[in-house]
């Protein structure tokens, strides 16, 4: 068990970390790398987001209330959908319900299998287990889904000649889309599989490191990490399969005719302003 050899980070520690970012930003300004602004901005965001998450988690763990846990997971899900949609490039509008569905399904499986069958916490909703697990799984799945969806629509656009030929020879929409589906699921899985293969050799993964730093037994931490990595790999595959299985039809209209939907513009403030301006122009 934990021997309470746990070293907390005080405000001076935070300040030193911030100084490192500032130093890196300074170097990037000198080298004209053009990343200084986003580096500092991201640091500020990360600091605030992490601290807020920490405070919320502390509160939820102390309250030990099942509804609070469910509410927190709900908020995390919504954020995960939003991040997936903003990261996926060139995808059409109206995919939010599908992304939400696949995240909910994988999350439910994750909680019931990983938390309840493998870890078996008491009570079953123990926030210090369920919430971090959900967060890690969502983080992993979100990047895989964003990658897979971007690749799928890109591939379907690139393959228009091949798709036309396949359809003309009598292929179904599924048969015409299959190579794109396979290649995009594969691409989405690559980081997860790479993580699995390199775990423990090159890197001590984040969760395992965290447990060890917090004074946990390294072998216990390794077991935890193994469970997490393998279950994330299968859940990522599941989420990708659900999404692409539901989404590929978007590239076809009635009578299995190929027609790529317009990519939804990236939701940005500039876009919102542009929309309003063009609406005003149309009105006048």
């Amino acid at each position: 068990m934990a021997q309470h050899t746990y070293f907390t980070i005080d405000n001076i520690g935070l300040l030193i970390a911030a100084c490192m970012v500032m130093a890196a930003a300074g170097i990037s300004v000198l080298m004209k790398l053009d990343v200084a602004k986003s580096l500092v901005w991201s640091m500020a965001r990360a600091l605030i987001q992490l601290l807020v998450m920490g405070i919320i988690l502390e509160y939820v763990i102390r309250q030990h209330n099942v509804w609070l846990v469910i509410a927190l997971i709900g908020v995390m899900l919504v954020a995960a959908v939003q991040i997936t949609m903003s990261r996926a490039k060139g995808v059409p509008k109206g995919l939010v319900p599908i992304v939400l569905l696949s995240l909910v399904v994988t999350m439910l499986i994750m909680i019931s299998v990983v938390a309840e069958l493998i870890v078996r916490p008491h009570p079953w909703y123990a926030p210090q287990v369920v919430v971090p697990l959900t967060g890690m799984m969502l983080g992993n799945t979100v990047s895989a889904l964003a990658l897979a969806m971007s690749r799928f629509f890109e591939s379907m656009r690139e393959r228009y000649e091949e798709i036309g030929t396949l359809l003309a020879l009598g292929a179904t929409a599924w048969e015409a889309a299959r190579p794109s589906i396979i290649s995009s699921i594969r691409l989405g899985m690559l980081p997860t599989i790479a993580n699995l293969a390199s775990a423990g050799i090159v890197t001590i993964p984040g969760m395992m490191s965290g447990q060890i730093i917090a004074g946990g037994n390294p072998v216990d931490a390794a077991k935890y990490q193994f469970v997490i990595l393998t279950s994330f790999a299968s859940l990522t595959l599941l989420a990708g399969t659900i999404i692409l299985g539901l989404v590929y039809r978007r590239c076809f209209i009635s009578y299995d005719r190929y027609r790529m939907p317009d990519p939804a513009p990236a939701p940005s403030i500039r876009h919102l302003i542009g929309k309003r301006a063009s609406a005003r122009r149309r009105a006048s």
Partner: protein
Amino acid sequence: MSPNPTPPAPHLFEATHVTAVMPQQGGDHTVFHDLSFHVDAGEVVDITGPSGAGKSTLLTAFARLNAHTTGIFTLDGKDSDSFTPQQWRVRVSYLPQTSTLIGETVADAIRLPWTLKIRQGERKQDPAGMLTDEHIRQLLDDMGCADIELGRDPRELSGGQSARIALARTILTKPQLLLADEVDAGLDEDNADKVADLLKRAASQGAGVVRIRHRAPDGRANRIMVLKDGVLSEQGKGRN
């Protein structure tokens, strides 16, 4: 309900009320409106006309591949809506201008249509068993493709060879109507002649053939239609 008097026997393929409206910035653009067309078994019909007149659009509309076209299409008097999309396209087969050969070898590329569900049926046969290398070789030799080895990578083929393999692939699926979209474009006289022979042969075996052509008439067409300014009209009879 049809405004046309019903002919004694239906044409092999008949298209009526064919309209193409392309979405464009600042309003939709009507390429053609309410066109009619028919072709009989064994007939070769050429469609010519200026670029951008909508010839390819018309052919993809016939195969019901085009997302921007509407119309009524019948095969042997049966409406296309009574077929599944796959059943329709197996019978009314569109061959695009750029030949896309999918597979590691020429033999794979030729077998592609038999890997699809529509031709697999309930038997779930191995495409290599349904179409052996020897069989493909013989068919290709018959079609004047003796110069193309089956084991070759399709990407290494010349333009003329790819065009002939793509055409052979479609002909081997025995469509009732073959829609050839300028498949002789960019080919030398010799290859263009071979392609024309292949199509004529398919017609002599009972298929209807529609060709989009930019070259001078080659004497193989029974009719030549001109699509210009949204109007499809017959130019004159070919020699055959």
